[in-house]
């Protein structure tokens, strides 16, 4: 699955798509592969505050529980409620329909700390090599 060129990425495998001062946040295709069949998602409600680098929710596969970390700080303005009923969308469309939350940025400067697509692709390529060494 291709990593959209306009997205920015974290080392914990989250992505953001920034439009104005609102960032859509999700987890990457690499992350959903690592998790396996996603069966449960727990997300904050609209109005909740998230902080860059801090956990804001949980994604669970049959086997594992994973925390999701906020790439940027701000206020949650929308939550993807569809995922409560259809968490498996995270496996099939992690960069699109399975976005998690939309965040109104409190500090737009934080975006510059994130990886661009080329840097993220290089990052997961080296992570893969380590894992299989």
């Amino acid at each position, binding site marked *: 699955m291709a990593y959209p060129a306009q997205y920015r990425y974290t080392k914990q495998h989250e992505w953001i798509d920034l439009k104005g001062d609102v960032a859509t946040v999700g987890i990457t295709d690499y992350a959903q592969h690592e998790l396996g069949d996603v069966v449960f998602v727990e997300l904050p409600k609209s109005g909740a505050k998230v902080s860059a680098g801090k956990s804001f929710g949980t994604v669970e596969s049959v086997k594992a529980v994973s*925390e999701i970390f906020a790439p940027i700080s701000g206020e949650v303005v929308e939550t993807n409620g569809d995922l409560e009923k259809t968490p498996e969308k995270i496996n099939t469309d992690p960069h699109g329909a399975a976005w998690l939350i939309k965040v109104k940025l409190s500090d737009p400067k934080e975006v510059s700390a994130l990886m661009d697509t080329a840097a993220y692709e290089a990052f997961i390529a080296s992570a893969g090599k380590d894992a299989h060494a």
Partner: protein
Amino acid sequence: MESLTSAPTIALRKTALNAVHRHLGAKMVNFGGWDMPVEYPSTGGLVAEHKAVRGSVGVFDVSHMGDIRIHTNRAPGGALAAVQHISMNDASKLAIGQAHYSALLYQQGTFVDDVIVHRLGEDDYLLVINAGTREKDIDWVRSNTKNFDCVVEELSDAYTQLAIQGPRAIDVVQKLTDANLSGLKNYWFTHGTVCGLKNTLIARTGYTGEDGFEIYVPSDQATSEAAWNKVMEAGKEFGIIPCGLGARNTLRLESKMALYGHEISDTINVFEASLDRYCKFDKGDFIGRAALEQTKAKGIRRTLVGLEMVDRGIARDEYRCLSEAGEPIGVVTSGSPSPTLCKNIALAYVPPAMAELGTIIYVEIRSQKVKAQVVPTPFYKRAKKAAVPQSAKIS
């Protein structure tokens, strides 16, 4: 994303099929010091593997399991006496070719390990033990049988053990052997030519709650890979897929089969684990017996129950169980979504007073109290096959 359930990397042991798993793109994990496949994403992953075993057939590499043979030395009877002394079930009831579930116990009636005891010959027994407890078990068996006239041999590294499991397992294995499998009852075994390998142990056993077979072939890489490939080839028409430890865990949990370090351990006794039906007090003395007789008289402080989540949330291993008031009352030993039932299920230790069916118990999930209910176990039980096929009755 950060996994809360990953383990540190250390030097891991490998089965003879390690290269096969890696070639298939399996996700590998450290399981009790072994580098083992947890699931095979390229053929569908954990849920597909679970469903293959419930619906048709799947194959597991379980070569990490250990094997201890205890056999006669100078006079017959020494091996049986040793097995009777170190395990809680009554091995004198086993016919040659029969196996049973049992356990090795400490003096205080808690678990060294659970085992399958096979009676290979007149005074000849094979104990199949867990991977994570292998070294501990061997040492314990050796030290506790030294006053018996028997020979204890560790054969763990001699075998590659394949578990072919599911309602069509019999069709797959029958294609590979001259032994008559339909005449082999559950928990019985035979020796036959399998995959061209003479005198191979074929047991109608497993850890999935489904019909199935476990075969024990020589552990050199070439033989092991050839056997694996033949099983895959024979199973092709039944949709066989390789299955990892992830599906093995969800399958055994649905069937309420104990896992060492979870439902049973060196601090949990036989009555608490509700495994006393495999503990035979009338067979004579055995290690742990005296303590268990006291436990029987005194009663237990906790008991294993099945839980089903009522509210949204998944109970996981080691989560706390809480009362309505929020007091800690117990602990989840195994918890997972159930792929067969599409519910979130768990096994947990709670006080006997909280064990009645329908009792509401709360599970603490990330500091939240989430409602669950005590339900009957096993969560899943396979339908018993009719002795005569339906079509035969009609004609």
